[in-house]
């Protein structure tokens, strides 16, 4: 016979999630109603555990009456995991299939939508620099989360990831060493600020805000997996509107646009690396 552990499992129902996201939307205007329930539920459970809250109702109370707690809550539930040169083969493909086309332009615009702490921004900047086209780029890096944006703007990452990032870099087979681009300062890999000279870090909520510029290249990686299909469709519209004709859209390794409503407005450049190109307006 088994021993039931003392700790109860909290089971969350769909209606409770809706109650919570409605409350947040009404009070703060953040729209979590269309986040993918399966992973959102897990985040909520994690938050309940972290703060010793026994029910969704308790959580709603706290969110409504403590704005500072809400800020922390947003940090807790959004997933910020990122890496330098995440999916090294993706960067290789960028170099081979996208960079040569950008290089022909007198100038071009890049958008990192949901950039998190900026590892992706620096990674691409390094590639652009090596190709001698960094100075032609105007780059926007946006996120819903102010805290990660601030970190991103410092271009410094914890040294504990150093070996891992070096490994990723080696897999890209780009020239030289990653260490050509940073120095160690206060336990951080401090990257050359020159890399983010042309980068504007800006708050932007993909679920709520409209398009603000036109781009030749958009990286929107590993954020839409946290959205449900309805919101994904809306975001694809937004990204489509934000691209110049023939502009490139890059998704995360396991994201796809084949199920989205406007899939036919893109052509596939690299199906394995999830690189697409706008072919219809």
């Amino acid at each position: 016979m088994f021993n039931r552990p003392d700790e109860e499992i909290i089971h969350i129902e769909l209606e409770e999630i809706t109650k919570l996201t409605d409350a947040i939307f009404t009070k703060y205007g953040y729209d979590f109603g269309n986040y993918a329930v399966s992973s959102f539920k897990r985040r909520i459970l994690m938050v309940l555990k972290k703060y010793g809250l026994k029910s969704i109702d308790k959580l709603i109370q706290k969110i409504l009456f403590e704005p500072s707690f809400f800020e922390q809550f947003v940090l807790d539930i959004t997933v910020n995991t990122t890496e330098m040169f995440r999916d090294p083969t993706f960067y290789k493909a960028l170099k081979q299939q996208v960079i040569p086309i950008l290089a022909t332009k007198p100038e071009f615009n890049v958008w990192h939508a949901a950039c998190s702490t900026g590892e992706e921004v620096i990674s691409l900047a390094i590639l652009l620099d090596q190709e001698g086209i960094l100075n032609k780029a105007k780059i926007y890096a946006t996120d819903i989360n102010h805290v990660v944006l601030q970190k991103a703007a410092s271009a410094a990452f914890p040294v504990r990831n150093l070996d891992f990032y070096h490994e990723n870099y080696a897999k890209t087979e780009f020239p030289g060493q990653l260490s050509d681009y940073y120095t160690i300062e206060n336990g951080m890999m401090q990257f050359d600020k020159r890399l983010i000279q042309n980068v504007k870090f800006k708050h932007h909520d993909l679920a709520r805000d409209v398009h603000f510029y036109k781009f030749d290249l958009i990286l929107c990686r590993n954020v839409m997996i946290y959205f449900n299909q309805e919101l994904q469709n809306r975001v694809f519209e937004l990204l489509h509107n934000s691209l110049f004709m023939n502009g490139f859209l890059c998704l995360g390794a396991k994201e796809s646009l084949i199920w989205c409503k406007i899939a036919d407005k893109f052509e596939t450049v690299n199906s394995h690396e999830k690189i697409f190109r706008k072919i219809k307006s």
Partner: protein
Amino acid sequence: MNFESILKNKKFEAIVIGGSAGSFTVITQILAELPQPFVLPIFMCLHRLKDKREGFKEALEIKSKIKIEEPDDKTLIQQNIAYLAPANYHMLIENKKMISLATTELVQFSRPSIDVMFESAADVYRDKLLAILLSGANKDGADGMRTIKERGGFTIIQDLNTCSMITMPEAALKITHIDLQLKPNQIPDFLRTLNHLILNEVL
């Protein structure tokens, strides 16, 4: 064991399988002996090396009777396919129609984690879920089995005497009710009976 009487009145809609160290041959055998067509979707979470992206699916596919797919996010769920959690992603069941992926933190030192997949499947399928936990050297999957049981699902572990690593199924056995312990060669029999019953709408 009379599987038919055990399966009576159980209207299963999906199967989840978790495994870790020592489960590869067992899962291969299960896949090799699946009846055709197999009417329920199968979701598998099997631990493996972090950056071993390629090769694992292919290795499983060699003998498998049904297609194995490492799904992209929001993949539509189909019958006669075994979905394998991709390396470095948690695989969650979003609803009865689709799969979601996530790169949230490791659970029980694992990503993909069996707990994550099992718990999301339990939320969606409730008492229509069949869960199988195989050999493994850590405790991933135990909490998931408990959630599945509390949500009314049916829980099977690999017979401890046949496990090359018992930690995983044993951890489940310690914290929740396990409906059946099956030897590797009994699992295909069980699934065949299940499939047969559904196809003949005896259930």
